[in-house]
């Protein structure tokens, strides 16, 4: 097939599907292993300088925030991020940990643009931004999940998105229409927050699954944080609810309120004052550092963070939870 147009954006993580298959064969055991550990253990074991990392869902919704904060505490830097993010990526940017972005969206939603993203990119601290639409980045993960090097789409065609992505446009050999080929993406590390997991890493998610199915299958190492660790019998009783099978997970961290200040469907709602606090403070670099000093560096772990937030605030979040009615 003739390449009609090639994006000039960098392929941040070159890949080889046979290497990925061999990795899955040898590094992702199918044995039942108790993978429970703390945030501290999981992050120090699997995250490293320069790794290619992504999170799911996004900062204000079912997001691995306790893992996010631990990563900042440990200071892993030069991160290459696959980025669909709100608070979590914002904090990594503010902490100066990010070098390159496969970016689809990093912003503060109703609160507007991210000052941290602006400072990090406009100063050149983030050296590379490669553009993708939301669908494109998810379908890149889907290609990996399928074990194939690319998936075609009609998204992005004709726009500057193609130009500044790493996609390639070809003519479909079957019908002749133009399609953009999205290269697979294989994360070094992915982090997902779920409602329930067992000790082996079988995970169930309530509410929307976002792109958990795809990202869990598009990474070499997967760290799960779960509101609740359940017995495996519970998984086996409802096997139709398992979205992530155990052999994909490398670590399982018990993290009640692990998504705070974001919400977790059916358990707790978002902590608006806490989100606003980040939004306001992160408008300046000094404010962002002050926030991180208080909520990240000033606490040893997630339990201390929750103590700092306080029971009363957490109860308020419980009250705001989504209910099935």
């Amino acid at each position: 097939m003739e390449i009609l147009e090639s994006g000039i954006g960098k392929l941040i993580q070159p890949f080889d599907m046979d290497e990925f298959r061999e990795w899955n064969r040898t590094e992702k055991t199918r044995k039942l292993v108790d993978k429970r550990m703390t945030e501290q253990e999981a992050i120090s074991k699997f995250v490293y300088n320069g790794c290619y990392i992504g999170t799911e869902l996004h900062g204000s919704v079912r997001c691995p925030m306790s893992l996010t904060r631990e990563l900042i505490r440990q200071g892993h830097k030069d991160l290459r991020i696959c980025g669909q993010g709100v608070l979590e990526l914002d904090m990594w940017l503010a902490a100066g940990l990010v070098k390159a972005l496969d970016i689809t969206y990093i912003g503060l939603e109703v609160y507007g643009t991210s000052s941290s993203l602006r400072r990090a990119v406009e100063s050149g601290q983030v050296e590379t931004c490669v553009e993708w639409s939301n669908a494109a980045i998810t379908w890149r993960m889907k290609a990996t999940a399928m074990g194939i090097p690319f998936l075609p789409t009609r998204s992005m065609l004709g726009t500057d998105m193609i130009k500044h992505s790493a996609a390639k446009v070809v003519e479909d050999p079957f019908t002749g229409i133009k399609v953009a080929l999205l290269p697979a993406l294989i994360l070094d590390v992915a982090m997902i927050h779920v409602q329930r997991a067992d000790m082996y890493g079988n995970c169930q998610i309530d509410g929307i699954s976002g792109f958990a199915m795809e990202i869990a299958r598009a990474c070499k190492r997967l760290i799960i944080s779960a509101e609740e660790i359940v017995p495996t019998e519970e998984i086996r009783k409802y096997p139709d609810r398992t979205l992530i099978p155990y052999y994909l997970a490398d670590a399982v961290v018990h993290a009640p309120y692990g998504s705070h200040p974001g919400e977790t469907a059916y358990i707790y709602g978002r902590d608006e004052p806490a989100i606003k606090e980040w939004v306001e403070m992160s408008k300046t670099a000094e404010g962002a550092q002050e926030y991180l000093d208080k909520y990240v560096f000033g606490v040893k772990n997630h339990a201390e963070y929750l103590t700092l937030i306080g029971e009363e605030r957490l109860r308020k979040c419980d009250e705001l939870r989504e209910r099935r009615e």
Partner: protein
Amino acid sequence: MTEQTYSKTELMICVAARLFEDGATCFIGTGIPMLAAMLASKTTAPNLVPVFEFGGTGAIMEELPLSVGEARTFHKGISALGICDTMETAQRGFIDYGFLGGAQIDPYGNLNSVVIGDHDKPKVRLPGSGGGNDVGCHCWQTIAIMGHDSRRFVPEVDFVTTPGYLSGPGAREEAGLPRGTGPIAVVSTLALMDYEPESLRMRLKALHPDVTVEDVVAATNFELIIPDEIGQNLAPSAEELRLLREEIDPTKFYI
């Protein structure tokens, strides 16, 4: 009869809400589109099917969602799957309308939400496409909602994030975008615009109350097509304002 006062934002939301077709599927993004969708579902489009990109479909919007992924986007919904399903659904032609925003819009309805200035050394780094590009590619008809000033309505956007009619007639087809898709309207803080069918350039359709053609032209940094007949948008009704202020956005996030 006392006339209620209202803000430009409230007016913009009302004008946008009146465009929703009842029973249609509609991709809803963060911000003003959510308010317009809620108002529409409580007034002229009670059977609107909202689709939020992260998986919430058919929610009954009792409270304003503050995020495209939050629980209110699938509250009493018909399904809560994931982004692959919603985007594939759009790519397969099931989404009638998409509502979009952006930092800049040009005469062909192309939108920019990536950078102001050079991509690699930007003056301003914006959030990125998010689902915007996908909405502009796959939804049958898209409607942009944004503030109207000469920094936003520009002759050429700095970065074409979301496709309108690209460079004009034939361009979407040439690029390979799905046949029959494209922008149909822009709702701004001053007026309602559509696109002239032959040139596909933005055209003034109806003015907001107390706004003149001169006001709109002054706020538009390109040549807007001014037709012979220009409509008049109605001011928000008492009921629309009540819904907005008491039910939809009581804490005044937006209005």
